[in-house]
């Protein structure tokens, strides 16, 4: 089905601003960012936390999802390349579809690179949260589909590499089709007598 925004859906967003110990909080005014987030459209609850990725941090999100009936989550912390998987799992444990999460990168892209100017860093963090809130409001639940996979492998080339791969797979119970263009398998190794470093026979 084509994803279309359900305009009747009541968007209820929770925003979590992470201090990352002092990694973020020593530069960015996390309390102010969380307060600002609370004023944004759709945001029901916003909090600043010591470590959002820690167990208490995650439990807070899970509790809030239940208590405030949140249906979108924004985590303002580190790079999604680091912790998106963590928070996706967290929200799905609380019964929310894992694609209804967005992260604002206020560490790698903010506190760590704008340390010289706390004010600018804080206002950038607010803007990044603003953008994440705008995006999360439009995110749709997605289901990862499953397709069947055949338990068989085509191995192209019957040199020592192809032979080894074919044997490993075959021994593990997978079907293998080993295709070699020459009349015999063996590749270059079949032409060698003794081989380095052990000086033993090749075949």
């Amino acid at each position, binding site marked *: 089905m084509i994803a279309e925004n359900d305009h009747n859906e009541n968007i209820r967003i929770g925003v979590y601003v992470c201090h990352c110990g002092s990694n973020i909080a020593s530069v960015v005014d996390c309390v102010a960012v969380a307060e600002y987030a609370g004023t944004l459209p759709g945001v029901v609850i916003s909090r600043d936390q010591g470590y959002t990725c820690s167990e208490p941090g995650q439990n807070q999100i899970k509790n809030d999802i239940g208590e405030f009936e949140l249906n979108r989550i924004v985590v303002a912390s580190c790079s999604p390349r680091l912790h998106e998987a963590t928070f996706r799992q967290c929200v799905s444990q609380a019964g929310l579809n894992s694609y209804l999460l967005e992260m604002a990168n206020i560490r790698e892209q903010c506190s760590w690179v704008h340390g010289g100017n706390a004010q600018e860093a804080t206002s950038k963090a607010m803007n990044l949260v603003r953008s994440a809130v705008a995006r999360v409001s439009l995110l*749709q639940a997605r289901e990862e589909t499953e397709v069947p996979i055949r338990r068989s492998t085509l191995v192209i080339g019957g040199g020592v590499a192809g032979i080894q*791969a074919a044997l490993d797979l075959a021994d593990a119970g997978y079907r293998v089709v080993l295709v*070699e263009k020459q009349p*015999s398998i063996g590749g270059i190794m079949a032409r060698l007598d003794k081989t380095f470093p052990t*000086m033993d026979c090749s075949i």
Partner: protein
Amino acid sequence: MTDAGRHPNITLLTMSEVKELTGVVGNFHVRILKRARYVKEKECTACGDCVEVCPVIIPDEFNMGLSSRRAIYSPFPQAVPGAFAVDINQCLGHSPVICGKCVEACKKRCIDFDMNDEELEFDVGTIIVATGMDAYDPTILDEYGYTRYENVVTSMELERLVNAGGPTAGEVIRLTDGKVPKSVSFIQCVGSRSQRRGRPYCSNICCMNTVKSTILLKEHYPDIEIKVFYLDIRAFGKGFEDLFRRSRGKGVRYIRGLPGTIKQDPATHDLILTVENTATNELDTHRTQMVVLAVGVEPPADMKAIQEMLALQTTADGFYLEAHPKLQPVDSASRGIFFAGCAEGPKDIKESVTQASAAAARAMRLMNPGVLTVEAITAEVDPERCTSCGVCARVCPYNAISVDRATKLPAKVTEAACAGCGTCAAECPEDAIVMNHFTDAQIEAQIDAILENDAAGKILVFACNWCSYAGADFAGVSRLRYPSNTRLVRTMCSGRVHAKFIWRAFEKGAPVVLVSGCHIGDCHYINANHWTERRVKRVWNRMGKLGLRTERLGLEWISAAEGVRFQQVMERMEQIRKSVTPEEIAETVRIIKKISEQKQG
């Protein structure tokens, strides 16, 4: 080898080639051409009676032409399968009038000239590419006289000479007089490590292969005098240094510097090498009875067919490109296709075997659950809007979209094949493609939010997840300071950045916009960034026509490792931003608004 020949789970097809591959991970469909062997594979006992009667005598390629074989032959004694084969291009013809002697000679009646080439089809879940490499052919390196002097041989030829099962039963002889040479010189890096000729990379195996050969020669002929001319000896692996030491301990001389020329003494067929002595800067000459060229390796000459069929990428040196050089060394960028051995780059047997087991394990990991989850970031076609123009199918790097322009049916995305780059959605002229989780509306909402206040003070950057966004992360980890007015909009691939996003940003008052992605050739989505480049050029073109300064739209390739480059690019964008006046922005907004009004009107 024999295990592979008789394993119940392995269907071994020799004299065979993949002709066609369709489908996607989980369900690839392959068509294989198995050329006729003309000898019944299961029945032949390799007695050799046929060979004795065959009148055709030709050079034996397995022995590098150092011996001969017949038109009916077994490639080598331990071949798997062991059955003989008829080289049909050399066979005189089996009709009794012409020849057919072998048919008569075979008491078991295994020879069957009515055999045809067969076409076989299989469905498989995964693919391992293990097509190996070729040894470098030194014919063009004229200064070494490979084609002119018979006593100049390659390391591959030496392998056959020194082999007990080879053409000389293991006796290393000069081809001019059939005698064992009293002296042998090895020349390293032939066809390797040269920007001028041959290949620029180190072939990885030839140093140790030479070390090995010197020991074998010394063991066969203790009095033989051996010199090795080299650039540097690369004995980096486990046990390698030991072997190198053993070689030197046996009196092999290692001399730094490669010969400029090799000349033959016409009387003795000895060879005279002229070498610059790097210590004294003088030219030394060395007389030797035999020269061995330690040839490098190169990608197989015929690999293009497979490469194109499987839509695989190669690195600049021509070997296959892995999904990630450190973290996914045996995966290709296409899910379900793996590399093993020298197909991915020159390596020795141990590394080839290690990689093969890794590839097998990666394939098993994928197949074991029996089902495959597809990340939900996939493209979807709106059949109402699609005009079946075919653009999306053309730009998709994964052939994940099919459009039948004849029947005018809407485009169809194969979800399992779609990797989620978003290129199709950015190129579709009808806006008929929804890129799930990175929809137009979602991205536009971010652009709007960023430019809502003080647009003129912002640097808007589109960054791809795998390279430029990761490069920004790396700048962060390295604590590199750059202007704080940068705002990144992350997409999975730069290919997702629709031209309309750029226009929208300018319309909302952006002074500068940067599109950034992986370097050309490093794209995580095969080559989707080629489309990014073309698209940005189109926008530049249009900007030029509208009288807008094209430098306000940047296009930069930034890798995950280039934090410093990310910083520099941001600083440059800030310089450009500062040069954009409020009047210029107002004029841009006016021009773009007018155009969109005209479109609507």
